């Protein structure tokens, strides 16, 4: 009896493992829809708006990929994933690409058999506290209760940081950002910690944002980026170069407004190659030559996407910082299109 139960259990696990094909591009084309793994809800990065449509910095990249591959930015199925479920969703083939502020780390890239194709946001872990607590530095947090999203790299950084500074803390493990905010506001924890961009996004949605401060310390490197499964290099290339097309577009001044004109009017051969007026770059990816043009038209170039979702004009008010173009002193840099 015991054996049958164990075998039965094994079978359920095996069934849920599903079948992931090696040719994601063909699958997506046949399906006519891109399955994009996004955040359950992180304002500015990936969250449903008032009408239930997903919007955000990460979501815009899903749209760009759908536009490049399928020719229609709206042909995306958004699959909300938590910190706990995201990697299983990608590994099992439930999603084609995961664009969900996930940190590029050695173990995830190698042991978990994923490929991080780019870094669309350079981030670091920060702390948010209530102002009336009178804390001005993360080094003063000895003995505090900390809300932390489970299944994230931030969980491990937090343990390392407190250990390195010889401090103690009580963790409260929460499933996602909204639960973390709820616990933090209810006073179940003194501190909420996650990526600094996530903190800014959370703070922006608080009713009394001015009563909360984000501490100056950034305790880790969190390069966030899209990732795909190991072993389908062509699909990885498509995501990577779609992203680079958006970055290059910003560098060359191609925007969603002028992308149609630029394709014909420009004399810059690099822009011509990018927009498919010259050369056959699209074919090398297994797409048509207008792929990048459509990707840029979907929600604009990297700079436009940044400003529209998380930039200084939005409630989140993130500065470009490390995410400025390399020409502006930042780290965003696209290799040559040739």
């Amino acid at each position, binding site marked *: 009896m015991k054996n049958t139960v164990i075998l039965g259990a094994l079978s359920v696990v095996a069934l849920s493992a599903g079948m992931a094909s090696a040719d994601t591009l063909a699958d997506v084309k046949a399906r006519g829809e891109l399955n994009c793994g996004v955040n359950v809800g992180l304002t500015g990065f990936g969250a449903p708006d008032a009408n239930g449509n997903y919007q955000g910095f990460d979501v815009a990249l899903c749209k760009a990929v759908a536009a490049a591959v399928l020719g229609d930015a709206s042909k995306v199925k958004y699959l909300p994933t938590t910190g706990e479920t995201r990697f299983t969703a990608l*590994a099992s083939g439930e999603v084609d690409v995961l664009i969900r502020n996930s940190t590029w780390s050695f173990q995830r890239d190698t042991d978990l058999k994923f490929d991080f194709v780019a870094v669309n946001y350079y981030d670091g872990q920060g702390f948010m506290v209530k102002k009336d607590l009178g804390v001005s530095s993360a080094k003063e947090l000895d003995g505090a209760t900390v809300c932390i999203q489970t299944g994230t790299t931030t969980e491990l950084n937090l343990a390392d940081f407190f250990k390195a500074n010889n401090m103690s803390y009580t963790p409260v493990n929460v499933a996602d950002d909204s639960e973390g905010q709820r616990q933090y506001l209810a006073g179940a924890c003194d501190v909420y910690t996650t990526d600094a961009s996530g903190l800014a996004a959370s703070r922006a949605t608080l009713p009394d944002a001015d009563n909360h401060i984000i501490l100056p310390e950034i305790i880790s490197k969190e390069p966030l980026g899209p990732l795909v499964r190991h072993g389908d290099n062509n699909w990885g290339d498509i995501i990577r170069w779609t992203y680079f097309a958006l970055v290059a577009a910003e560098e060359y001044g191609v925007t969603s407004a002028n992308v149609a004109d630029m394709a014909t009017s420009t004399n810059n051969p690099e822009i011509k190659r990018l927009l498919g007026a010259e050369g056959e770059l699209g074919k090398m990816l297994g797409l048509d030559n207008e792929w990048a043009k459509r990707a840029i038209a979907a929600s604009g170039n990297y700079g436009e996407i940044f400003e529209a979702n998380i930039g200084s004009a939005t409630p989140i008010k993130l500065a470009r910082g490390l995410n400025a173009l390399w020409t502006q002193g930042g780290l965003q840099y696209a290799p040559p299109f040739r």
Partner: protein
Amino acid sequence: MAFVQDAPKDSFRLGMLIYDTRYRAITIQVIVLTLFLLFLSWLVNNTIENLAAKDRSFDFGFLWQRAGYDINQTLISYTNDSTHFRAALVGLLNTLLAATVGCIVATILGVLVGVLRLSKNWLVGRMMTVYVEVLRNVPVLLWILLTMTILSETTPAPSDFRVTEAMIAAGEAPKATMMLWDTVAITNRGMNVPAPLVEHGLPRLELLGMSVNSNVLAFLVVLGGSLWVNSRIRGHARRVQEATGVRPVTWWKSLAVIVLPTVALLMALGFHLDIPTLTRFNFKGGTEILHSFTALTLALALYTSAFIAEIVRAGIMAISRGQSEAAFALGLRPGRTMSLVILPQALRVIIPPLISQYLNLTKNTSLAIAVSYMDLRGTLGGITLNQTGKELECMLLMMAIYLTLSLIISSVMNAFNRAVALKER
């Protein structure tokens, strides 16, 4: 003159496997078993192929790697330098703690409510009906969330306990104060109670690669020894009583045997209470009983107690009316009739369904993640699974543990059932 005719020679033909009723049952069983085994092997094969396709290995080596994360409630010593195995063990103990406390509270409440529901007092009976129907007809997850919300929203924040100099000057009292002679503080995070501490403790014991608190061990050994001696004293008293009819006075011997050695041990170890005090963010010192634990255990106990109440009521009603009439005829009062006559007999009906309630409660502790209680599902099946990416291994291990746990509970309860069952000869 009868012709003795031989029975037709029965040669076996293949068709008989289907048409002959003697073989048909076996044939069907063989076919079904074969199909079942084929299905199983397909599943195992599918798993292996998919693991190979993803270039993933299947091994449990990760259990011995450094966990790297912290857990807020640890019954055994644990730091983020401990292994994933140790983290799983911490989770398992947290699960067991919630399950044990939950089962005990649920049983006490359930028996009480079940008995009271049969009360002749109209109001008490109806109130217990409402208790049962309300509790068992709302999903247990909602009860857990509700309990957690009540506990965390109605209690003061730790900072409300603070008395600043400005407040003393203004003669203001803090918003909240500690209870029971300033030893217990209930905040919106948990309940801080005094903890037993020893001044000069024994060194930790390394046992089977695990570190064990030898003070607790010593205490348990001494207490166990005392109880054993006490049972010998009582046994002797019983024999004397059976032989002579006079029971010797033993209470002072029992008291001395149980209390003196443990007190002596505690004195030798330098026992004292560690009272929680407010530090910058939280109460430090003492033991913190997290609200997540209280909410989970209480909600599970309340929910399960409604089912147990019904089981108890059914058990009592299964006992023939004549039993209580006979007891009344002997002059037993209703309370004693219940405890001496009805309940012992009802136990035989109650225990088998009670086992499944205990199993349900134990398995329901895996809802702990809803209130951030770090049980087995939270450590092994949550953080460890995520940080190592070993979904299959963690899930299988977790299922095996829950299965073992459930089988242990049922076999213990079955043994108890056999012990109280009607002895038929």
